C-alpha cells in the first residue's frame, strides 16, 4: 500500500498497516523534518523494523535533490541479515510501484571473517587471524614484492578488484552478506574491499553498532559518512553497555607476557632494518618530526584499527620528541609493561582514577601523559614501517597501547581497577587490570554530533527518560507507544510459588534450595504437557542453568520433560548453540515440539526471535540481576550516583527488568501471533520491581495473575491456549481498528491521526 504522511508518500510492502506503525512513522518523520535525534519505544511484535525502513527510504525518495544516507545499526550479524531481507521485500515493492526511480544500493558490512571468499584466508579461526591472513596477501609491501617475485602469494580476488579500479562497483540492489560473497565470486572481486568501498556510495548501509561506536573501527570505516545521514540504532536497550565496552580495556598477565614477546620481535626487526634498509627508519623519523603521526592516505589493505580515543580528543600535534626514534619508543613500551606488571603484583584490590594512575606512571616509569596519548598511533606507524603483516600476533602490544592512549586522553568517567584474584575463587591468583569506562555518553557523543538525525529505538526503553540522561543528548521526539491488540494475545503471569505453596526465587539464600529447584522443574513439566510447539526458558546465569539442569537430570525430572519435548540448551560455545537453535527450529517446524534453555543477557537472549510456533511460552526463571559483587559494576554505580543522581538499587532493578522484558518480548512478532510469559520469582510481585516492566507488558498483566502457584498457572495456560485457538476478526472489534487498510488511512485523513493514539 502507499499513503501520504504530510508531504511524503510512503511505500509500505503490505496491504494493511497497524495503527501504531503509522503513528511511529509520523513521529519519525517529524524527527527527520526537524533534523534532530529521537527516542522511540515500540513494543515488539508490531513490525518496528519494516515501519522504520519504509518511512526512511520513502523519505529519501521524496527528496531526490538532497539525498539522505541511511545507516542502520544492528547488534548482531544475524539481525543484520534479518533487516536486509526485510529491506529486500520493501525494495521489490518499491520497484514494482515506482519503477527504476526507486533503485537504491543497500548493503550489509561485516568483517573479513564474514565476507572473505579466499578459501585459504577464511579458514582461519577467528577475526584477528583472518584479518592478518588477508593482510599477508594484500599489504602494499607484499604486493610490491610479489610484483618482482611471482612466487610470493597474493590474493587473486584482491588483485582483480584492484585491476578493475573504478569499474569495480556494485549495481543497485539489496545485498546481504551472502549476496556480496556470491557477487564477489561471480566477478572474481574481493567482496570485503568492494563493500568497504561501496559503503561510501550506498543509500542504505547496515552494520553492527561497533562500526559507529567503537572509535577504533569507526575511525577507518565510518569516518567519511556524510552529515546528511539518518543513523538508526535498533534494539538499542543495551546501547549504554556497548558504549561503555567500546572504551574499556583489560590487561592480564598473559597480555603482558605477549607484549614483551612483541617488543622483542620488533626490536629484532629494527636491528634487521638498520642493517639492510636504514633509510626507511630515517624516513619515518622525518615524517614524525613534520608532525604526521600517520601517512595521509593509506591503501585500504594496509588500514588497521584506528586510534581507540574519540576523534575529537585526538591531539592534532606532532608526536613528542622522545618517542620519535623507534628504539626510544620501544624502551618506553618496555618500561610501561614493566610498570603494569609491578602493579599486578598487588595483593589487594586497588581502584584509582586515570589522573592518579598517570601521575604514578610518570614518577615511577618516567612516561608522561603526552607520551601515553601517542602510544597507539606511534605503534601503528612503527608496525607499518617495519612491514609487519601478521597483526594477530601483535594483539597484546596493541592492547597495551590502547590502554595507554585511553588512560592518557581521558581524565574523568573512567576508573582503573586492579584485582589480584577473582572474588569467587580467592585461592587462584589471576590478576587483572581493568580500565573501565562509566560514562556511556562519551562513545556516542561523536555520533550525535556528526549526524543530523540519530534514532534510538527498541521494544524496551522504559523508563524512557533515563536514556537521554545516560547518553547525554536532547531528543526532539521521545515517545513510547502502546500496543493496540485485536485480542489479548499475550498473557504475562507472575508465578511466586510452587504447587506446594513454597516461594520460588533465585535470591542468593533461596537459589540452591532443592525445594526451589524442584518447584521450577515441576513448573516446566506442567507447562511442557500443556503448551504446544516451542517453549523457551531463561535462567539468570550459565552456572545456575548448568546446576539446575543437572539436578533435574539427577532427580529424573528432565526425563519426564523429555517425554513431551526435545530439550536444547545454550552453551558458551557459539557454534554449538547455533546448531542447537537450528535444530530447535526444525523440531518446532516438524511438530515435534522442543524446549530451549537459555541465559538472560546471553547471546541468544540478545537477538534471536522465538516468534510464532518457535515460542508459545517463555519462562523467566528468576530476576536477571547483574553480578553485584563485580568491582566494575560497583564503580559504575558510584559514578552514576555522583553524576546523574541515579540510585544504585534503582539502576540495578532497571537493568534487570529491561533484560527480563527483553527475554520475554522475543515471543511475539505480529498481532496474529500469541504467546505466554511467566515471570517465575516471588520478587516480581513487588510493585517496585514490576513497575519497571515496559507498559505494553504491564497493561496485560492482570491483578489476578500477580501471585500464582504452579497449578494455577497451568490452568490459566490451558484457558489461554483454548481462547487463542478460536477464530477472530483481524481488523479489530467494537470500533477499535487494529489493522488499517489504504482506504482506512485515506478516510481518516492526516489531520486527526496524530491524536488517535
Amino acid at each position, binding site marked *: 500500500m502507499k499513503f501520504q504522511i504530510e508531504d511524503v508518500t510512503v511505500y509500505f510492502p503490505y496491504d*494493511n498497516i497497524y495503527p501504531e506503525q503509522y503513528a511511529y512513522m509520523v513521529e519519525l518523520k517529524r524527527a527527520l523534518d526537524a533534523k534532530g535525534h529521537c527516542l522511540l519505544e515500540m513494543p515488539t511484535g508490531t*513490525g518496528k523494523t519494516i515501519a522504520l525502513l519504509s518511512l526512511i527510504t520513502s523519505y529519501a525518495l521524496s527528496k531526490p535533490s538532497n539525498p539522505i544516507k541511511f545507516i542502520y545499526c544492528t547488534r*548482531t*550479524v*544475524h539481525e543484520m*541479515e*534479518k533487516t536486509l531481507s*526485510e529491506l*529486500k*521485500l520493501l525494495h521489490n515493492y518499491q520497484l514494482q510501484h515506482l519503477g527504476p526511480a526507486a533503485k537504491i544500493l543497500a548493503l550489509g558490512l*561485516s*568483517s573479513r*571473517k*564474514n565476507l572473505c571468499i579466499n578459501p585459504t584466508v577464511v579458514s582461519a579461526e577467528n*577475526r584477528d587471524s*583472518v584479518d592478518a591472513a588477508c593482510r599477508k596477501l594484500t599489504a602494499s609491501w607484499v604486493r610490491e614484492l610479489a610484483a618482482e617475485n611471482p612466487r610470493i602469494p597474493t590474493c587473486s580476488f584482491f588483485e582483480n578488484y584492484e585491476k578493475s579500479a573504478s569499474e569495480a562497483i556494485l549495481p543497485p540492489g539489496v545485498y*546481504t552478506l551472502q549476496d556480496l560473497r556470491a557477487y564477489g565470486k561471480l566477478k572474481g572481486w574481493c567482496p570485503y574491499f568492494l563493500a568497504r568501498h561501496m559503503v561510501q556510495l550506498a543509500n542504505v548501509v547496515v552494520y553492527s553498532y*561497533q562500526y559507529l561506536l567503537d572509535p577504533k*573501527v569507526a575511525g577507518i570505516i565510518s569516518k567519511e559518512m556524510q552529515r546528511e545521514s539518518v543513523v538508526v540504532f535498533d534494539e538499542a536497550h543495551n546501547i549504554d*553497555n556497548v558504549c561503555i*565496552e*567500546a572504551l*574499556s580495556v*583489560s590487561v592480564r598477565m598473559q597480555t603482558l607476557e605477549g607484549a614483551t614477546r612483541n617488543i622483542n620481535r620488533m626490536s629484532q626487526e629494527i636491528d634487521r632494518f638498520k642493517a639492510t634498509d636504514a633509510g626507511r627508519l630515517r624516513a619515518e623519523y622525518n615524517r614524525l618530526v613534520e608532525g604526521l603521526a600517520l601517512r595521509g592516505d593509506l591503501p585500504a589493505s594496509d588500514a588497521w*584499527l584506528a586510534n581507540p580515543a574519540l576523534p575529537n580528543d585526538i591531539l592534532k600535534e606532532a608526536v613528542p620528541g622522545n618517542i620519535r626514534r623507534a628504539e626510544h619508543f620501544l624502551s618506553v613500551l618496555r618500561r610501561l609493561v614493566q610498570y603494569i606488571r609491578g602493579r599486578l603484583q598487588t595483593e589487594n584490590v586497588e581502584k584509582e582514577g586515570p589522573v592518579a594512575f598517570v601521575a604514578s606512571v610518570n614518577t615511577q616509569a618516567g612516561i608522561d601523559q603526552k607520551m601515553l596519548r601517542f602510544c597507539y598511533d606511534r605503534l601503528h606507524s612503527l608496525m607499518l614501517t617495519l612491514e609487519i603483516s601478521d597483526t594477530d600476533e601483535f*594483539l597484546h602490544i596493541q592492547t597495551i597501547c590502547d590502554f595507554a592512549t585511553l588512560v592518557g586522553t581521558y581524565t574523568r568517567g573512567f576508573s582503573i581497577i586492579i584485582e589480584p584474584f*577473582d572474588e*569467587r*575463587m580467592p585461592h587462584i591468583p589471576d590478576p587483572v587490570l581493568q580500565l*573501565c569506562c562509566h560514562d556511556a555518553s562519551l562513545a556516542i557523543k561523536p555520533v550525535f554530533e556528526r549526524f543530523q538525525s540519530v534514532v534510538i529505538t527498541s521494544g524496551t526503553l522504559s523508563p524512557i527518560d533515563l536514556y537521554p540522561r545516560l547518553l547525554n543528548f536532547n531528543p526532539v521526539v521521545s515517545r513510547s507507544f502502546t500496543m493496540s491488540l485485536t485480542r489479548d494475545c499475550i498473557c504475562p503471569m507472575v508465578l511466586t510459588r510452587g504447587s506446594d505453596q513454597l516461594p520460588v526465587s533465585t535470591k542468593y539464600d533461596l537459589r540452591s534450595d532443592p525445594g526451589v529447584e524442584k518447584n521450577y522443574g515441576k513448573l516446566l513439566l506442567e507447562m511442557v504437557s500443556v503448551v504446544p510447539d516451542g517453549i523457551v526458558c531463561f535462567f539468570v*546465569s*550459565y*552456572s545456575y542453568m*548448568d546446576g539446575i539442569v543437572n539436578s533435574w*537430570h539427577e532427580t529424573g525430572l528432565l526425563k519426564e520433560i*523429555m*517425554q513431551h519435548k*526435545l*530439550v*536444547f*540448551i545454550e*552453551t*558458551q*560455545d*557459539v*557454534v*554449538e548453540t*547455533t*546448531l542447537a537453535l*537450528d*535444530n530447535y*527450529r526444525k523440531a518446532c517446524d*516438524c*511438530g515435534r515440539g522442543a524446549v530451549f534453555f537459555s541465559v538472560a*543477557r*546471553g547471546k*541468544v537472549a540478545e537477538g*534471536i526471535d522465538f516468534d510464532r510456533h518457535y515460542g508459545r511460552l517463555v519462562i523467566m526463571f528468576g530476576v536477571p540481576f*547483574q553480578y553485584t559483587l563485580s568491582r566494575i559494576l560497583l564503580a559504575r554505580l558510584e559514578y552514576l550516583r555522583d553524576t546523574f543522581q541515579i540510585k544504585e538499587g534503582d539502576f540495578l532493578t532497571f537493568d534487570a527488568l529491561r533484560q527480563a522484558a527483553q527475554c520475554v518480548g522475543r515471543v511475539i512478532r505480529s498481532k*496474529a501471533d500469541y504467546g505466554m510469559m511467566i515471570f517465575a520469582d516471588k520478587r516480581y510481585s513487588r510493585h517496585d520491581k514490576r513497575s519497571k516492566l515496559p507498559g505494553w507488558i504491564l497493561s496485560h498483566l492482570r491483578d489476578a495473575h500477580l501471585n500464582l502457584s504452579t497449578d494455577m498457572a497451568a490452568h490459566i495456560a490451558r484457558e489461554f491456549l483454548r481462547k487463542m485457538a478460536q477464530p477472530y476478526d483481524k481488523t479489530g472489534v467494537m470500533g477499535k481498528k487494529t489493522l488499517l487498510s489504504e482506504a482506512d488511512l485515506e478516510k481518516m485523513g492526516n489531520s486527526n491521526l496524530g491524536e488517535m493514539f
Partner: protein
Amino acid sequence: MANDPSSPVKLNVEFRTIKGHKFTKDGTKQALLNLTQDQGGNYIFEFENFPDRNVCKDFVASAIALSGEAGRTVPEKSAVPIQDEQLSAAEMERRIKLLQEDSDLQKLHKQFVIGGILSEAEFWATRKKLLEQNYSRRPKQRVALKNDMWSTKPLADGQSNRVTFNLTPEIILQIFAEKPAVRQAYLNFVPNKMTEKEFWTKYSRAEYLHSTKNVIAAAAEAAEDEELAVFLKQDDMLVNEARKKIRQVDPTLDMEADEGDDYMHLPIQDHGLPRNDNKDVLDSQYEPYRRSFSQHLNQHAAVVLQGRVIDVELGDTRSVAEALARTKHAELAKDASDVYLDKERLERISRMTEIEDLQAPRDPAVAPLSIKDPRDYFDSQQANAFSTLGDTVSGAKQLKCSVSTREAYCSLKECISEIKFQGLTEPTINSEVAFKVLNGLAQNISSNKYHLGRNPNESILDSLPKITREELLLHWSSIQELLKHFWSSYPITTKYLLTKATKLKDAMSQIYPKLQEIKESVQSDLRHQVSLLVQPMLQALDAAFAHYDADVQNRSARSGERPNGF
C-alpha cells in the same frame, strides 16, 4: 497344484497368467505364498522363513501389478474411446507403487478396472491428490527414536564394588548415533583388537568415570590405556561435523558470524553476566577430558530429531555401526555446496520475514497427515461411537477391560470354591461381586466373542467372524468407490456418462443382494450389529438407485417430448 520340494522339475509360469497372490501373516505357522492363476489354478510356495518369503512377495506384487497394467491397456482403449491419456513411465511407476503399498486400493483396482466397470483413467482421476502427494517423495513412515537419554547412572549394589550397566540394541544404536567416535572405535577395534564384550566393558568404564565427574582421574586412566582414552576424550568427529553444519545454518540464526564483528576482546562482555565457568582449577592438559552435560543434551536431541536414519536390523551391532557411518558420510559429502538447499533456505528466510497478518494469507503451510493404515484410525473412532450406542453394553465393558473370559471364569470358580470352603462369612459383599461376575459372564457368553480383542481397538468389526468382516470391508470400500463415480457422473450430459452411470448402477445392484446375504448369514446375536453396519450402505445404495430411476424417467419423458434428443 502340489509341488514336491524334492521334485527335480522346475516350475516355470509366466507372470502374465498370474492374477493375484495371497500370503500368510508373519509369525503364523507356515510361511506360505499363494499365486492365483487366471484360469483358476493355484501355486502354493512354502518358504523356510518369513524374510525370504517377504522378499518374494514384494517382487511378485510388483510383477503382477506391472503385467496387469500392461495387459489391461488393450481392452481399455476399445472401451473408452473418448479420453485415453498417454501415460509417462514415471506416472505409471507411481501408480504401481501406490497399488503395491495399499492392498485395499489394489483390491478395488482389480475389482473395477479389471472387471471393466471403470476405466483406468476414471479410477485414477479421483485419486489425483494421492498421486501428487506420493510424488513429493513422501518418506516412509518409521518409528522415531525414543527421547530418552541413556542415563549413565549405573546400577550399583550396596555390598560389592560392582557396577552394572544395561545395554540393549536400541541403546547401542543411540550411543552410536550420538557419539561418532565410539562408533568409529567400534569399527576399528572389534573384533580385531578386542571382543565385543571387552569393548562395551571399556566403554562402560569410561562412562562411569564421567559420571563421577572426576576429570583428573579420567585423565590419569586415559594416560594408561589408549583405547580407553578414545572414549574419554572429546569427540573430534562431532567437532568437525559441527564445523561443516554451521555453514548451512540459517543466516538469521548464525551467532557464530557475530564473532567476526567483535573488535573488543573484552572479558566483561555479555553485559554484566558473571563469567565464572571459564576459570577453573584445572590445567589445560585436562581440557580434552572435560565433557559438559549440556553438550550431550544437545547432541541427543539432535539425534532424536533426525530420527531413524538407517534401516538395519538392530541385533547386529557391527552392521548398525557400518550403516550409520555410511549414512553420515553420505550426508556430509552431499551438502558441501548444495545449490538447492541454498535456494530453499533463502525462500524460507523471505517467508519468515513477512508479517503474516498484514498480508492476505498464502497457501496454508500444512503437512499432509500420514496415516499408514486408515483402518486403525477409523476403527478406534467407530469403537467410540459404539460405546455410546448401547448402554447395556457399556456397563459390561467396564468390567471386561481387564478380565478375559477365561480369567473371569477362573475367578468365579475360585470365589465359589472359597465360599464353599469358608462358608459365607461376609455374604453381602461376596455375593454381590459374585453376582456381578456371573452377570458379566452370562452376557459375555451370549454375545459370543463380542468383546474379544485388544482394548484400544475394540470394535464391532473385530467381533465378527473374519470372513464376514473382510467381506463387509470390501463391500464398503467398493460401494464407496462406485458411489463416488456414480454421483460424479451427474448431471448426465453426454452419452458416455449415461453408459457409465448405467454400468455403475448395474455393479451396485449386484452388490446389494450380497449385503442382504451377509446380514442374514451371521449368527443371531450379531445380526443386530451387522445390520447396523450394513444399513447405511444399503441406504446410500437406495438413494443412488432412486436418483437413477428418477433421472431415467425424466429423460424418457423429455425424450418423449422431443424425440430428437439433445
